[in-house]
């Protein structure tokens, strides 16, 4: 006998799991504590700007002039929202159309290269999109309307940047629709258009919705593209040709030079960004939740 049969089943502390479990649990907790740590340090650095009701100035002050102790974040918040919503307005329908194209229209020899292209571009660094926007898109816009760096430029480049991601998530949602639905609708003699718009897309709506929310979060958090092509002028946008500064770009632009209250103000805008993303994540989670129980 190679191993003797245990004479009793009574527990011996030999189980290797007893070693690993607390170790792994510790790792998991450590990763989660990161969020607390981030919030704590953002708060710690932002406190000088927040205490004594200082937080009110972020919404009451007209604009962002740290030299004159004016810390109004609203113009940049509007700018961020304007850029993101315009980008999403462009990317959402185009992304969905591309997903439909790959799934239902593309000739079979195109499907794999097309997917590869989308995957490659989804992994492209944002700074490359920014570089391209700065050297190609901005001069084109500048030819029509000076100075070229504008809400429009930022939205266009941002839309192009999130498009591959939107298309790929939509595609995944479309592929999750059971093919029986397909056959069932086709058996009813529906046209392809009716089938897609009336059956397939509605069936995939939660997956598509969650993908869109994630794309929004990504666009909102994007820094380099808006820093490079939006112009960085602090103002509430009135036309799509206005140069604006987004919240993220503000941090990147001034963080290296900021001191004291100015620095605290930048950390506050970081907190506000995190808060916005939190809301979006909650929204996405809710959408996914519905999706699971639909």
């Amino acid at each position, binding site marked *: 006998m190679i191993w003797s049969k245990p004479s009793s089943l009574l527990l011996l502390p030999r189980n290797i799991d007893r070693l690993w479990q607390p170790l792994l649990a510790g790792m998991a907790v450590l990763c989660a504590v990161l969020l607390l740590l981030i919030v704590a340090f953002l708060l710690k650095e932002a406190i000088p700007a927040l205490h004594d009701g200082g937080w009110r100035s972020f919404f009451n002050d007209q604009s962002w002039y*740290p*030299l*004159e102790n004016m810390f109004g974040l609203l113009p940049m918040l509007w700018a961020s929202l304007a850029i993101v919503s315009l980008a999403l307005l462009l990317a959402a329908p185009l992304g969905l159309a591309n997903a439909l194209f790959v799934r239902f229209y593309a000739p079979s020899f195109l499907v794999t290269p097309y997917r590869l292209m989308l995957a490659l571009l989804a992994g492209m660094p944002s700074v490359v999109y920014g570089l391209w926007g700065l050297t190609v898109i901005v001069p084109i816009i500048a030819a029509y309307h*000076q100075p070229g760096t504008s809400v429009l430029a930022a939205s266009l480049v941002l839309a192009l940047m999130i498009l591959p991601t939107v298309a790929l998530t939509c595609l995944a949602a479309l592929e999750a629709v059971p093919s029986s639905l397909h056959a069932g609708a086709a058996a009813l003699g529906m046209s392809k258009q009716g089938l897609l718009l009336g059956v397939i897309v509605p069936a995939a709506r939660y997956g598509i919705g969650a993908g869109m929310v994630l794309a929004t979060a990504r666009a909102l958090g994007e820094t380099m593209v808006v820093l490079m092509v939006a*112009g*960085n*002028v602090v103002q509430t946008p009135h036309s799509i040709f206005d*140069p604006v500064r987004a919240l993220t770009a503000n941090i990147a632009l001034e963080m290296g*030079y900021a001191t004291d209250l*100015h620095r605290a103000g930048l950390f506050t805008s970081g907190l506000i960004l995190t808060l916005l993303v939190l809301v979006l994540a909650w929204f996405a989670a809710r959408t996914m939740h519905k999706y699971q129980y639909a």
Partner: protein
Amino acid sequence: MKKFKILLTTLICMMLFSQSSYAGSERLILTGSSTVAPLALEIGKRFEQLHAGVRVDVQTGGSTRGVLDARSGTADIGMASRALKGTEQDLTSHLIGMDGISIILHRNNPVKMLSNAQIIAIFTGKIRNWQQVGGENRSITVVNKAEGHSTLELFLHHFSLKNSQIKADVIIGDNQQGIKTVAGNPNAIGYVSIGTAEYEEAQGTAIKRLPMAGIAPTTEQVRLGKFPLSRPLNLITKGKPSSLAQSFIDFARSPAVRDLVEAQFFVAVASQH
């Protein structure tokens, strides 16, 4: 598994080795003004050649950052492209050069001269077309600097403006970014360090400097003290600097680096005496 162990051991050895090599060498950290940084970098390279085992790291971050880092000890030496303010008298400044701030336009812009009033009108958005100041019929793109740069502070102070009055079309960070923006846009107007601008022009960049109050924005005029918008370039230390920092400062002020200062189109201190 075996290979993995070998890899891990190698990595750890590398870390230990690099740590020890780091401990063996001396390091000077300079932070601050983006105007001084390119010069400090060049001086640092020459300094390293003369002092084996010394490494000079230069980080840009604006004059105020340089002052604060020198005070907090984050940096051994701060760099500032301005004089120390009244609240900063606890620190010591070491002059290494002089510089001015010049208005720059695109090289193809026919405008040759702008009065102070015109400059103020352009930057505050009252004049919006080059035609109004004798140029072509094109709208003006105003390039302003981001907050935290001493260039911005000096410019505002000189023209008695507040930053909130300026109606900018583009906001830029470093001098180089300002020059790139103006060089890429025929309608732009901006202001940068004379030294940086002269250096870039010598490299063939499509910009030109405008005289201010009739005085040409050149290193020569700054040296003579005639140019109205000029400023000192300082190295900042707190208390008595370390012997290494002291020898770097002495080196930066010595004639040995005069060619470097002049290559950056700044006025060398050694030549003033």
